[in-house]
């Protein structure tokens, strides 16, 4: 469970309201695959991932980024029960997708970088700290059911 103060919760929801979530999802997932190319191992069926521009313009990457960010946004509404919210996704990522939870941490940090890029001045150290708590909580929740 993440412990955000009321001020942090307000910061997070206020700033989330200012971004285009679908674009953040696509950008974060794309950058994950460009900066850490080994993460492409889960997406060989996505077609052309051969260069940074191929990855960033890939329609399947964008669609999947959107899917992922919608789940993340759901987590933002249930910060008091992330483990419950992500329980079945956790089982899926372990049992069917076989994704090392380290990847959730890497993607979480990509979301942070994209938010910093998009929000500029608004993404203060306090804002970063609040969002880092959220991405760490989501990563832990997604890893919780692993066995």
């Amino acid at each position, binding site marked *: 469970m993440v412990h955000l103060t009321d001020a942090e919760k307000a910061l997070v929801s206020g700033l989330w309201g200012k971004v285009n979530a679908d674009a953040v999802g696509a950008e974060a997932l*794309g*950058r994950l695959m*460009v*900066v850490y190319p080994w993460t492409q191992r889960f997406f060989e069926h996505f077609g052309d991932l051969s260069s*940074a521009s191929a*990855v*960033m313009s890939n329609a399947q990457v964008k669609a999947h980024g959107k899917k992922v960010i919608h789940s993340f946004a759901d987590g933002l509404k249930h910060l008091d029960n992330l483990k419950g919210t992500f329980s079945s996704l956790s089982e899926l990522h372990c049992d069917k997708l076989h994704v090392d939870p380290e990847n959730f941490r890497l993607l979480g*940090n990509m979301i*942070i*970088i*994209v938010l*910093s*890029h*998009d*929000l*500029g001045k608004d*993404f203060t*150290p*306090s804002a*970063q*700290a609040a969002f*880092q708590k959220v991405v760490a909580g989501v990563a832990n929740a997604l890893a919780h059911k692993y066995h």
Partner: protein
Amino acid sequence: MVFSEDDKRSIKGIWNKVGGHLREYGAEALERMFFVYPTTKTYFPHFDLSHGSAQVKGHGKKVADALTNAVGHLDDLPGALSALSDLHAHKLRVDPVNFKLLSHCLLVTLANHHPADFTPAVHASLDKFFASVSTVLTSKYR
């Protein structure tokens, strides 16, 4: 880790764009790191870590200047960073995990101030650069 010609071009390109701001960014990255990862403060009990601290500004400048030196010697980071590597191994002994935390905060800071130049390809090259510098600085630890 090997830098391609594209990596070198990306790193030098953004470094030129940033120019004199780098020292401010060094301080900002440290401030973010101390705030977001409070355990990193344990290495600076002798510092005033409040917002705007002159000591943090001074240290940010030091870090920025060392990185600029590294950018000028991408083909020989171990050589260029040898003295700093000795310092970190024998005197400072900063746990290796912390280099990733500072590297992340440097990326957050650069993305924040230079959104147009911080493309995915530049981001990738910078991540490699910071990881390489971190590896060199911890290479003599044992």
